[in-house]
């Protein structure tokens, strides 16, 4: 199993009330942007990723979001290029480039090839559709999001593998002269891992392409369902899915006392946390979600990662945000709500002694070949962030590696995803173990 480190690189200097008043991170005016603090933080976060390598993480993971203080990575390829040069060993995984909102797959192919070359083949490139708000930010037609995604992906693979020059006339993209001089270091091209949250269409697409799917902090029960869906699709394509096809990323804080860890973990709901990524009207642009996803979202009672809860939708329809709000009370409720999230294993916080068995339970249930620690959000000091990383790496990670060996969780480098042949008519093996869900009170 590979163990990774990820942070959203939050902008840490925004008063919480500003976000709460806006009901979301997306849309907060950039008048609050402080260049000196941002300059410090961009440098700090790059150092932090280098520190992750020093600590022994196998993978560092980057992402990007647009117009959003939730995540300072607006152009992750810039950061990835710096890391490609500065680090020596870690894999650099991008989860992922939002192909439909960038709308320039040829440029993307060139940028990523350069990163792969600078790193001498340490790039793992992932793709996403971009959050709903990013369709607005980039004026990317959300009704063509899936088409842009598929076409851009197919084009990039071709641009990396088919000798040029050649001409491309697609539905959404057109290039007269495809012949990128810089081609990836890895052959035929860098591995691709695809992160996701809710969309079964993405899971199906990953299974078809034999790309590992990285669950982003999704609830354990539904994640097992997604794994099963992936494995069923994989079986249709003639292979047995296994740990090498799955990764899981989960908010994690480690400190030297439970109290301290709990206090730091409160910052996962700072400003409303991931459920306040963007307001409902920006989260669900027209045509962005499939009908089944829309139905599922509207019925969801408690919200989801970058998602929208039914409650929020109703509140928004009533215009319930117009009444005066006691923001201290809102904050208190958010923190109180975090207890349930922790009980559900959606945030892991504690000392090495309490965190280790919890993550082992997750590994037992989901059997991922990749586990990624998602570092804390909100205004947490550099020292506390680094202490959490250090404690995780030194006192949790070795036990997780041992456990992964014990329960046989090969990663995508140990076993090529999609390489285990499954003959037609043969029943596939289980990919998740729901047993512990009951013991943990999650079913």
């Amino acid at each position: 199993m590979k163990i990774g480190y990820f942070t959203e690189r939050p902008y840490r200097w925004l008063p919480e009330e500003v976000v709460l008043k806006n009901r979301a991170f997306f849309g907060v005016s950039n008048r609050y942007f402080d260049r000196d603090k941002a300059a410090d933080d961009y440098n700090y976060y790059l150092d932090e990723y280098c520190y992750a390598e020093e600590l022994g993480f196998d993978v560092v993971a980057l992402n990007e979001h647009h117009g959003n203080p939730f995540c300072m990575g607006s152009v992750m390829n810039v950061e990835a290029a710096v890391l490609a040069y500065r680090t020596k060993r870690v894999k650099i995984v991008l989860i992922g480039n939002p192909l439909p909102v960038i709308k320039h797959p040829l440029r993307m192919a060139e940028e990523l090839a350069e990163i792969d070359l600078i790193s001498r083949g340490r790039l793992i490139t992932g793709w996403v559709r971009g959050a709903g708000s990013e369709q607005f930010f980039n004026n990317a037609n959300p009704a063509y999001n899936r088409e842009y995604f598929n076409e851009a992906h197919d084009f990039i693979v071709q641009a990396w593998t088919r000798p040029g020059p050649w001409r491309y006339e697609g539905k959404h993209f057109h290039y007269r002269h495809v012949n990128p001089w810089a081609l990836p270091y890895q052959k035929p091209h860098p591995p691709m891992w695809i992160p996701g949250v809710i969309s079964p269409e993405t899971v199906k697409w990953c299974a078809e392409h034999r790309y590992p799917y990285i669950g982003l902090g999704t609830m354990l029960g539904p994640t097992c369902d997604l794994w099963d869906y992936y494995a069923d699709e994989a079986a249709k394509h003639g292979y047995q899915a296994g740990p090498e096809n799955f990764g899981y990323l989960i908010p994690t804080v480690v400190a030297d006392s439970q109290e301290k860890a709990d206090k730091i973990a409160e910052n996962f709901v700072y400003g409303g946390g991931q459920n306040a990524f963007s307001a409902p009207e920006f989260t669900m642009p027209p045509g962005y979600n499939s009908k089944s996803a829309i139905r599922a979202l509207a019925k969801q009672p408690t919200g989801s990662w970058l998602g929208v809860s039914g409650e929020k939708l109703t509140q928004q329809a009533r215009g319930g945000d117009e009444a005066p709000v006691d923001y201290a009370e809102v904050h208190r409720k958010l923190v109180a709500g975090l207890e349930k999230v922790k009980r559900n294993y959606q945030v892991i916080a504690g000392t090495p002694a309490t965190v280790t068995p919890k993550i082992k339970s997750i590994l037992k249930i989901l059997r991922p070949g990749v586990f990624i620690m998602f570092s804390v959000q909100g205004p947490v000091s550099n020292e506390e962030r680094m202490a959490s990383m250090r404690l995780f790496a030194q006192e949790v990670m070795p036990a997780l590696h041992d456990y992964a060996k014990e329960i046989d969780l090969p990663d995508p480098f140990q076993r090529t995803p999609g390489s285990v042949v499954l003959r037609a008519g043969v029943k596939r093996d289980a990919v998740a173990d729901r047993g512990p869900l009951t013991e943990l009170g999650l079913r």
Partner: protein
Amino acid sequence: MANWTKDVIKAANTELSIVRGGSGKPLLILHDELGYPGWMAWNAWLADRREEIIPLQPGFGQSARVDWVRSYRDLGGLYAQVLRELNLAPIDVIGFSAGGFIAAEMAAACPHVFSRMVLVAPMGIKPQDGEILDFFELTIRRHLRATVADPENTPEFGRIYGGEMTPEQFEAFEDARAETARLGWEPYMHNPSLPHLLYGVRTPTLLVWGTRDQVVPRGCIDGYRAALANCRVVEIDGAGHRPEIEREAEFSRAVGGFLAE
């Protein structure tokens, strides 16, 4: 008592749902970006005088989506094909909001396709002043409320959209929003070449606009007035974006009178 029917016809190489009602000289009605809301009082009033023909826009749930239609100009071309195949042109038209945009694209491509045009709060031309409301940035419920000036006191609005939204309604609205985005996301609900292509079109045109319209600003009406050679404007005092249900009597009088000229 409804005197309309809904059928699926084959035309323009696709299947199109069409609502037809009333009797008299045929009249094409192009619904707005939210979809056909149902047979309203103004439809019933007009049905005594005209045969109303209301195609349900492809991709809005009832007529199949047509993949090659990627702009309002494409859609206008498809509807023009339908009119040719049904031998309906020249015909009078009423277009509401984005439906007005479609009608204007059709007139720009072929000025003789319509004998008279009624454009009710039409999109399609970038307003000289103000902006077309970005309803893509609104949830459907907020968008709906923005379409009338006084939702609580517009009985037909309550009749169409009152009560809890069913999953089917929600889905139909999402279909409409998605298809509208496909056609009108960028440039947003207008076509920069449209006013130039409309220049010199002499089709008698009535531009209808509610003075409290929050969706389409008066600037759109001014843009049409500048482009069309033979048009006049009727302002409906106090109405929002849907004068046909907000001020039904006044609307019917103005439109009925114009079509009867």
